[in-house]
């Protein structure tokens, strides 16, 4: 009886298809206050868990167009709530700048860049690297030089702490220089590595992968 029950349980579970999340399934974002209340005094842990949950909608298996299909309005609301739950976590802004903003859809990209800019204005000295990346995307992906210059000027004006590197404070010049996206990205990542901001091994691996992808894409261009 026990053995039969165990076999039946194992069979039912083995035959069940794995749960898959579709990009369209992203539910409405909770309010930051609700997330904080649900965190039971552990906002740092919950904000990171919420990021992993959000990731499951775009990095899930069977999702052929990972970020394109996401509802970006909802996505921004989720990211907003997560940033407000733990404002010192860099995860949501990293994902916004390095994952969600790097898509081919200009409207969605602009929506994400606007979110990054808004978040930067709340804490410029901590969040300037994400706006610096947003400026690069505005220039090279959107071909919107005025927007890139506006972001660069904001970094120069508002990121005033001494640990902000010189290249970031002179971002506007950097934007105006005639260099391709790969060169600019390499300079920026090299600068971030030199300041010791990139210490997480997962983040290094992820960014290295992105650089290689960029190299491949530019090499394949005529």
């Amino acid at each position: 009886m026990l053995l039969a029950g165990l076999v039946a349980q194992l069979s039912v579970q083995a035959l069940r298809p794995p749960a898959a999340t579709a990009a369209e399934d992203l539910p409405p974002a909770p309010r930051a206050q609700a997330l904080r209340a649900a965190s039971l005094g552990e906002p740092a842990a919950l904000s990171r868990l919420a990021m992993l949950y959000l990731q499951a909608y775009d990095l899930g298996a069977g999702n052929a167009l990972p970020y394109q299909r996401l509802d970006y309005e909802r996505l921004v609301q989720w990211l907003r709530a997560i940033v407000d739950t733990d404002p010192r976590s860099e995860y949501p802004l990293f994902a916004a700048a390095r994952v969600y903003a790097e898509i081919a859809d200009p409207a969605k990209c602009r929506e994400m860049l606007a979110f990054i800019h808004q978040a930067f204005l709340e804490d410029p000295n901590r969040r300037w690297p994400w706006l610096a990346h947003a400026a690069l995307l505005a220039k090279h992906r959107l071909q919107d030089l005025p927007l890139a210059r506006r972001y660069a000027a904001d970094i120069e004006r508002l990121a005033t702490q001494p640990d902000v590197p010189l290249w970031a404070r002179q971002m506007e010049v950097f934007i105006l220089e005639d260099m391709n996206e790969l060169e600019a990205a390499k300079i920026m990542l090299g600068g971030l590595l030199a300041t010791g901001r990139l210490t997480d091994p997962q983040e290094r691996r992820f960014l290295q992968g992105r650089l290689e992808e960029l190299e491949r894409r530019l090499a394949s261009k005529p």
Partner: protein
Amino acid sequence: MIGAGQAKIRRFPNRRKMPPALLLARSTLTEARRGGLPWLALGCLALAFGLAAFLSQVAVTESRALQAALAAAVLRAGAAFLLAAHVAASVVREANDKVLELALALPLSRSQYYLGKLAGFGACGACLAAASCAPLLLWAAPGGVALWGISLAFELLLVAAASLFFAITLAGVVPALAATAGFYLLARSMAGIQLLARGPLVEESIAQSIARGAVDAVALLLPRLDAATRADWLLYGSPGPAEFGAALGPLLLYSGLLAAAGLFDFHRRNL
């Protein structure tokens, strides 16, 4: 022929002079050590470690912070639950087995018995807090981990005081555990509930004002557990002395309050 216990007392004559409350605390600690608590704590450590290791593989950044924050959250909740369950089960078992009557028949006052038990359970909590710190040293600075551990020890003292109070008052494992869990969860989420009650989307009305007043009144009765044992200390640096003192002071105060309430109830009971 003398027993092993007597032989020990002969070898260590100071044990004869140990105050009864301390002897009781020591026996409470020994009971916890010989029971399943160390194994359950080990299981909790393994769970926290495994969960943190698994989820860090999915993270694209802040993998160390993720591991530290998640492990800290699991260890904190796990230690509180284990201690509350151990206290409730131990106290109710002693009452059912008539060990309590036997203890009170000895030259031992009710206050000595109650405070001795609380000291013993508090020591169990300190041991659990020390064990919980060990895996966190892999991902966070030792200073932050030490302060987190001290705060957890004080938080577990409060949990022990609450569980002891409810176990003696309600005289059942399930009611005591449910009351302790409700108290603990409410104390940890009260600041968040207050934020919700004051959120920007809340409409001003009489009913809303009454609800907000009720939430504030309940908050006055509870300790601020959300301000203690914060994972932030592991991720973003140790707190200053003022912040640390402000987090620990209310825990001690509330533990004292619960002990006083428990003693009051214990003295008035007809045993």
